[in-house]
């Protein structure tokens, strides 16, 4: 049960946020309703999630693998199942999702060198972000441009944030998208 109220029926000051969320996700996810008692944060956090959960400089399908790996590495599982479904809907395979586990990704034939470089970054950011060295950054630069690296860093750390935030608030979204995504 969430620690705070779930605002099912939006008040006037969050009606527009609920409408935008519904348009993007196909319905209003629970995380939006839990934020509903604070219109400013309901707006800004929902906007950030919408911006990240779509194709960007990095394809959405790979972003879903980044989200799954980050949730696993940081031990927070808010909407993990929903992101697994999303990854599949966007064309990711069970092999790639399964090989995110522990250190399987390091040896897996299902990932490119550029993708593995991102998983190494995720593990190091979760472990100690003060210690992300040249050994992590050099392979990243070979596979991704500046804008993509900024997007990936923002995505990874946003997932760390929201995983903690929504687990703290006790919110759950077993399904995030009820509209077709592919």
């Amino acid at each position, binding site marked *: 049960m969430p620690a705070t109220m779930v605002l099912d029926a939006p008040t006037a000051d969050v009606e527009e946020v609920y409408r935008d969320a519904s348009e993007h996700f196909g319905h209003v996810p629970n995380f939006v309703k839990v934020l509903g008692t604070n219109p400013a944060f309901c707006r800004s956090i929902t906007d950030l999630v919408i911006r990240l959960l779509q194709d960007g400089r990095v394809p959405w399908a790979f972003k879903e693998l980044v989200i799954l790996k980050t949730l696993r590495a940081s031990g927070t599982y808010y909407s993990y199942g929903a992101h697994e479904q999303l990854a599949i809907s966007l064309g990711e395979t069970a092999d790639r999702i399964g090989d995110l586990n522990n250190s399987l990704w390091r040896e897996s034939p299902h990932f490119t060198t550029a993708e593995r470089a991102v998983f190494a970054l995720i593990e190091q950011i979760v472990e100690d972000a003060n210690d992300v060295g040249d050994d992590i950054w050099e392979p990243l630069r070979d596979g991704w441009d500046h804008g993509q690296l*900024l997007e990936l860093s923002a995505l990874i750390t946003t997932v760390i944030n929201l995983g903690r935030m929504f687990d703290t608030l006790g919110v759950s979204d077993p399904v995030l998208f009820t509209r077709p995504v592919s």
Partner: protein
Amino acid sequence: MARLPYIEPEDADPVTKQVYDDAEARFEMVLNIFKITGNAPEIAEKMWQVYFDILQDGQVSWVDKELLILKSTKIGDCLYCVTQHEVVAGRLGVTPEKQADIVGVEYRHSDHFTPAEVAILDLCAHMVVDPEDIPTEVWAAVKEHYDDGQIVELVATVGAYLQVSKFGDALGVQLEEVWHGHEPVLFGAEPPVSAASRHHLDEFLAQAPSA
């Protein structure tokens, strides 16, 4: 060395320029952490809006949020964030003595904190360490002083500052020259746990004070 280029205001596109203006209103300058996000303006715009909502009085006072920012970034061993927010908190009237007592569990025994402040600092510490297992009594104490909308804002503040600590540190964002010579308050009271962070602190302390 930062891992990506800083995009200076004169090279920024209109979206990024707006972000820089909003940042300057809160920090009195465009900090490096904002400049690095000029590499992806469409992400910067949405990411920083959450922080602009935090860095002002909202349903919760800015001062309460600064206490949580200092606590969460100290636990994250983020020299960059802690240094910036020692300055911001100071401007808002949080004395160095009070700031120093945020470390560890000092705040629980310190004369500088109200019961409401102790309650949210306890929530912050639990949220960082294990969000799946926050004791009932911690929630009860918070709910004695804050309503649901305020709790959303408090929890969003802690989450956002865990995020930005890791974001800035991973990207190697450096403290601006203007802070060279700043005497660390929280890290003076309790050194970083991370060896890499201790190294960053030593390097920072070795810099000559800015003129």
